[in-house]
């Protein structure tokens, strides 16, 4: 059972990662570098609980803030430009962060431990081992899954509210045509940067949560593969509404686990699945039209239940 709780927690982490891509995706800015903010969040979060004795929630929050700061650093110079420069810059930044994380070493010696395993904190290429917060505080994987999913719930509700607000309209206008958005007085660059920084914040939180499940992270966890898969969550689930990232991340995390009986070929099937979904549902699994259709079906059902309105 605890295996499935771990999967549930990892799914929550991936949902957060998908929303971090989606935040700037709404304004038409495609980031292929969320792994950088995820990695920064993971390292900061783990360092805070392991080395500085923070509790989990504040470590996660600080990790989010650190990642948001990193995304300001990337976003401000590049988001003022139109076109693809931003996407390209995120790829480069993510790779720089990966290599730096792969080479950082700080922390203190560990009292107990075998030879060659006596360091607490990130240790260069060996990675950051012994992130034992959950174990030390007696948090079971089930409880942890609940913690992760309550953060996911907060984020989903936030997106649900944003999607129905003026902000989403503005972001979608920017996505459609930046010149039009400017002509009606939208400070385009400011909105794009804010959306991207919110994405960075979510990615940072997600990274910190990830580090505590895995208890062991290294710079090479945050390769370009991860960034593209985070984007795949959104594109496969559907980038037109907020339900797409949720569905995409859940499916793409759970399906490889369900396929475990035929584990030998699960990664191939995962790749095949991505191709097939793109071939048959290029708008993603949930498009805006699907949502509208289901919405009106629900509304019709609700109307049918009220007999007084039937006549």
């Amino acid at each position: 059972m605890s295996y499935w709780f771990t999967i549930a927690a990892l799914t929550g982490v991936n949902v957060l990662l998908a929303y971090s891509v989606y935040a700037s995706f709404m304004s038409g800015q495609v980031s292929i570098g969320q792994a950088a903010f995820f990695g920064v969040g993971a390292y900061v979060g783990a360092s805070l609980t392991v080395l500085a004795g923070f509790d989990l929630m504040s470590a996660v929050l600080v990790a989010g803030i650190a990642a948001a700061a990193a995304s300001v650093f990337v976003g401000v110079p590049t988001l003022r430009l139109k076109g693809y420069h931003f996407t390209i810059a995120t790829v480069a930044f993510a790779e720089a962060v990966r290599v730096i994380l792969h080479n950082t070493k700080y922390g203190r010696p560990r009292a107990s431990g075998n030879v060659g395993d006596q360091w607490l904190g990130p240790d260069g290429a060996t990675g950051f081992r012994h992130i034992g917060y959950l174990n030390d505080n007696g948090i079971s994987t089930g409880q942890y899954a609940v913690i992760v999913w309550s953060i996911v719930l907060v984020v989903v509700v936030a997106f649900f509210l944003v999607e129905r607000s003026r902000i989403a309209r503005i972001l979608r206008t920017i996505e459609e045509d930046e010149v039009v958005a400017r002509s009606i007085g939208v400070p385009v660059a400011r909105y794009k940067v804010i959306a991207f920084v919110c994405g960075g914040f979510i990615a940072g939180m997600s990274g910190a949560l990830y580090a505590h499940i895995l208890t062991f992270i290294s710079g090479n966890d945050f390769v370009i593969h991860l960034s593209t898969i985070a984007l795949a969550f959104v594109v496969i689930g559907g980038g037109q509404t907020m339900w797409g990232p949720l569905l995409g991340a859940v499916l793409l995390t759970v399906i490889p686990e369900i396929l475990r009986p035929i584990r030998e070929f699960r990664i191939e099937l995962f790749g095949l699945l991505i191709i097939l979904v793109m071939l048959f549902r290029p708008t993603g699994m949930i498009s805006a039209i699907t949502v509208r259709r289901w919405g009106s079906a629900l509304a019709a059902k609700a109307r049918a239940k009220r007999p007084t309105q039937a006549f």
Partner: protein
Amino acid sequence: MYFFAIDLTQTTIDGLLFGSTYALVAIGFTLIWGLLRILNLAHGVTVMVGMFAGMLSATIIGLPFYLGILISMCAGALVGFLIDRICYRPLRAAHELVPMIATLGFWILIEEVFIKIYSKFWFRDYVPFANPFDGAGLEIGQIRLRGDYLVTLAVATLLVIILYFLIYRTRLGLAMRMIAEDHDIGSLMGVPVGRVLTTAFLLSAAYGGAAGYLLGMTANLAGPYAGSQAVVKGLFSMILGGAGSIPGAIVGGLSLGVLELQSSFLFSFAYRDAIAMLALFLVLIVRPQGLVGKRTADRI
């Protein structure tokens, strides 16, 4: 001080020579990006397939070098054809990200299948790749030019000249330049857009295959993960020089080669990639269009 200067020159020259393979990988990326605005994430697969086709022809069959390169290019082009037919052709009408994610799927699928097949035949991480130029070299004063690096540079130069000829002297190249400007107008002018793009995929993948051969030969090794490493290097060369521009890919590849070797010579091997990537990121902040790229979109 004198010896330091010699070493510095030596490192720079090695970097330039070795960077020419990065430039070849980057050309493959930049062709597709320039024409379609998609990152062809499956490009590494063509490099890997080219490397293994080369390994089979050079080590196992023992074919001469020039035939091996041709075989690698053909094998790469075959993969390029598949990428076009599976990931791009059916998705032409969709958003640009859709074919890109499809190439991600293709990359994961093929690399995984390839690793399975590979580990059925060989039980180690790498297989040797015959290098006919091993140990050969050219001495100029106190600078030594490695033979295989020189061959790499020669092949890369030849391929770049062919590419320039194709793009600026043939109708195909004219059609490509048209399409790079605007697909719709191109097709209104009677350019067979689909066919030209298939050719572009073939060309890009053939260059990837050649790069695979050269990478394998200079390293004396062929491994199944080479493709993923090549994706990163090629992508960064392209970005450094300027996405979508062919001179950009060349300048980017050569500078990445120099940057990597210099930073491992001047600082440390461990930080080699970090320094290269940070330099790249700083370049992007100052010149988001890359070193020689043109700014395609206006500033707002």
